[in-house]
């Protein structure tokens, strides 16, 4: 799991049977108490009105193992609607399949101040299942769990080694030589999480559960690929680099962008991926963002 905190926004991505949404009430209280930010809107029955909220997840593999509100998408949406007044929920993909994707997103609030920044925010996420067994092996580490040997910090060392051996630190072609920050951890008995930060401000994160029968890996990134690669690389090549590491039997790709040109270019670029057949391709207009969802299966 990972948490990324910027001055004005945060991203929390949690795995397993975590209870992500149960932090909302306390989080919003802390932000108001500690920072004095006024987040409640008097026009919406006292509900919170941050600039934008996204909540998403692929459908669970074992929904019955989840706790409380996370047992069903409708419960999660009801819970979110207790906090936010202008949310919309989407079920993306085929409802009759166990591999669709769920999204909750609020309408953007009007921008209060005029900002000089015209940053094009974009997020690429690749969710992979059925990792090739030879690839999955790379994410199994043998070490003993022993609190007494805490000085060794083997989990971080093994995480570092996995990052290097798999080439996951070379997903992006860092032609501009921006600063690269890395943090990875290899779990016992298996599993891997890593956070990579480029240019002090963009991240990509990977989470891998290589267990046979229900293996899964995720890649999420807000790195502006053309910027850091000096226009030498695009997101289709990033996708190819990620797929080469995991060789999944199936994956879905989601891409949020404010720039429809970028989104349409990616949709064209990934029409034909070697060894994979496209199963779904859906584009949504979401207020000030566009969303591309595509799902592929190995031939």
């Amino acid at each position, binding site marked *: 799991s990972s948490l*990324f905190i910027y001055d004005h926004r945060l991203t929390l991505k*949690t795995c397993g049977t975590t*209870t992500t949404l149960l932090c909302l009430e306390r989080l919003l209280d802390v932000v108001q108490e500690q920072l004095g930010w006024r987040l409640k809107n008097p026009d919406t029955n006292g509900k919170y009105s941050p600039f934008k909220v996204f909540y998403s997840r692929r459908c669970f593999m*074992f929904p019955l193992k989840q706790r409380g509100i996370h047992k069903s998408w409708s419960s999660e949406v009801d819970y979110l609607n207790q906090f936010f007044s202008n949310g919309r929920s989407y079920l993306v993909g085929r409802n009759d399949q166990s591999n669709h994707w769920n999204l909750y997103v609020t309408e953007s609030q009007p921008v*209060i101040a005029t900002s000089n920044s015209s940053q094009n925010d974009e997020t690429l996420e690749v969710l992979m299942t059925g990792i090739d067994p030879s690839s999955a092996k790379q994410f199994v580490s043998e070490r003993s769990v*022993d609190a007494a040997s805490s000085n060794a910090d083997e989990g971080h060392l093994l995480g570092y080694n996995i990052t290097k051996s798999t080439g996951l630190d070379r997903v992006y072609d860092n032609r501009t030589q921006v600063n690269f920050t890395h943090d990875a951890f290899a779990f016992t008995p298996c599993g891997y999480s890593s956070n990579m930060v480029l240019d002090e401000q963009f991240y990509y994160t990977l989470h891998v559960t290589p267990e046979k029968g229900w293996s*899964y890996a995720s890649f999420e990134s807000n790195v502006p690929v053309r910027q850091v690669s000096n226009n030498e690389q695009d997101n289709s090549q990033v996708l190819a680099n990620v797929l080469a590491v995991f060789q999944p039997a199936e994956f879905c790709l989601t891409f949020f962008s404010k720039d429809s040109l970028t989104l349409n270019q990616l949709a064209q670029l990934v029409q034909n991926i070697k060894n994979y057949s496209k199963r779904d391709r859906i584009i949504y207009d979401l207020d000030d963002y566009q969303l591309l969802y595509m799902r592929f299966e190995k031939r």
Partner: protein
Amino acid sequence: TVTIHELTNHTYIDKELSAALDSTDAFEGPEKLLEIWFYAHSEDIPNTNNKASKRTLRDIPLDQWVEILKLVKCEVLSIKSTKQMHAFLLSE
């Protein structure tokens, strides 16, 4: 690419947790992803303390984040901080 230096420059690291963490049966696969933009840009953050610098999410102390993450059933393994963000690696 990453260098070995990245193992020694954490902003925070919980070595005891990292040594003792056993994730057997912890993983389910698909993650839950929550993203909140309190403001569209950092420049839009209001100055609420009448001081020269604005207070931002990155000024919230670590113990508060630990408390919030407990509600999520996550613990902080390690943190890397850069000029513009904090990146937390969490248990689970």
